[in-house]
């Protein structure tokens, strides 16, 4: 066994395990709760639950299958050939050879906002997309160096290697089903109220399902955001280890985050829906909640946190004798 400088980050693994365990726990509690409610009242709401499960599951599978096409269309991006963007392809080629992974398709989105994302259900169907703002060499633009661009792309390729789209889709499944149940329960309450007035049990059942689903949705939403932040840290880590240049990734993060806050809000609102995919969040939650609340809802860890983690990796790589 060759010696290695690349020790896994156990703390991150433990935190991710706990998050996923809690998510699983909420899922089990949710299923058990629904079953208990339905058996207690002789299954009058079963159709709604079944419908939500099928519909939610179906939409999750569909979004997984078409994630690359949906994301490219939403960003207005175009897949480019090596002839069209030789330098970009050159960087991706080298990173993929270093990491021994399949090369994803490479796309460019015509957006001034500097950012990048990667999506796709598996490594063969992945697409790596950068915005024009990220690779624009014009003065006054972002002016990322080759090393910094490489760092950003390594981070995105790590998302592909970690199968983050699949993991997050599975993790979101519960929230999708719960959200659908809230909606269905609400509508059936609204429109079915008159018909069911003869049935003593029907209205409370729907109400209970509504409340339980809403709570489950809220809790799983927070857990998913937490998981998303851990996945970002994991991608930072793998990306920095792949290139061996944690500082370049750190300075790219600072540049991209700074330029993001300078861009007019209109542009950012349009990008908000894509937030979870991006290298850096396009829009920060601000205002009422204060910093602590926005940290809980955010898809990305704070810049400070990410820089701190990268500094640790830098130290690790600089050790004179490996373990």
């Amino acid at each position: 066994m060759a010696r290695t400088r690349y020790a896994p980050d156990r703390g991150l693994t433990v935190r991710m395990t706990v998050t996923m365990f809690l998510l699983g726990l909420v899922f089990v509690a949710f299923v058990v709760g629904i079953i208990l409610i339905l058996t207690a009242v002789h299954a009058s709401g079963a159709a709604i639950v079944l419908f939500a499960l099928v519909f939610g599951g179906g939409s999750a599978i569909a979004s997984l299958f078409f994630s690359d096409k949906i994301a490219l269309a939403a960003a207005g991006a175009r897949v480019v050939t090596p002839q069209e963007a030789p330098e970009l392809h050159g960087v991706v080629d080298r990173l993929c050879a270093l990491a021994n992974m399949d090369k994803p398709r490479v796309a460019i989105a015509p957006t001034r906002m500097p950012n990048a994302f990667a999506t796709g259900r598996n490594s063969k169907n992945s697409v790596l997309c950068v915005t024009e703002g990220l690779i624009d060499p014009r003065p006054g633009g972002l002016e990322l160096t080759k090393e910094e661009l490489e760092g950003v792309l390594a981070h995105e390729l790590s998302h592909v290697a970690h199968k983050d789209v699949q993991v997050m889709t599975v993790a979101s499944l519960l929230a999708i089903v719960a959200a659908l149940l809230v909606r269905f329960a609400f509508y059936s309450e609204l429109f079915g109220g008159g018909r069911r007035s003869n049935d003593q049990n029907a209205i409370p059942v729907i109400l209970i399902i509504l409340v339980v689903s809403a709570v489950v949705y809220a809790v799983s939403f927070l857990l998913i955001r937490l998981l998303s932040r851990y996945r970002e840290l994991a991608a930072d880590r793998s990306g920095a280890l792949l290139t061996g240049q944690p500082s370049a990734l750190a300075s790219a993060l600072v540049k991209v985050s700074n330029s993001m806050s300078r861009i007019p809000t209109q542009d950012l609102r349009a990008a908000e829906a894509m937030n979870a995919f991006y290298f850096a969040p396009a829009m920060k939650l601000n205002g009422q909640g204060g910093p602590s609340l926005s940290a809980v809802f955010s898809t990305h860890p704070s810049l400070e946190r990410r820089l701190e983690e990268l500094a640790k990796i830098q130290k690790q790589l600089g050790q004179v004798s490996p373990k």
Partner: protein
Amino acid sequence: MGFLDTLFGRTKPVQPKLDDLFALPSAAITLQAASGFVPTGSGSVCFRAVEGKTFSDIQDEVRQLLDMDAGKPGGGLPVEVSRDSYGFTWLVSSHMSDEVEALVTDLHAVNSALVDNGFGPQLLCTLVAFRDAEERRLALVYLYKRGTFYPFAPLNGERRDNALELQMKGVLGDDLKIEQDLTKWFPVWGAPGL
């Protein structure tokens, strides 16, 4: 990557495969006999340098080690170090045309120095240059992470002679592990020593 690694979002850096590189000397003979391509005697190792002094110290040590034999019979020329526009470092070792084995030994010294110091995952590829009588250029590129070779034949102006490359794939198929996935045959334009 295992299920747990996916679940926890961690990638184990890929260790290089070094052994298949030693198939090069016999492949060079086959190549010369079948197609007239002769080794130029120069070859290079390409890796992604890690930031910080630890790595640059190791790089200097390797260089000194290889230069110890320079000038002696079979020792070749001093090693040249350069950085390409992608930030990758190339160590070029130059020997006589008929010293492919000594060249491979040099290249392997670089590999093992990096691997021994825990920097094996930084190795990208190794490249050995060939020429034929018409001065056509050909390189055999060894991908460390896959342990496979592919031919790279640059023409002027960032174009590749795909026909020649595929022909070489056929010629060398018995001697070398040729990379079967053509999407991995990435171009190394302007590689030093080519």
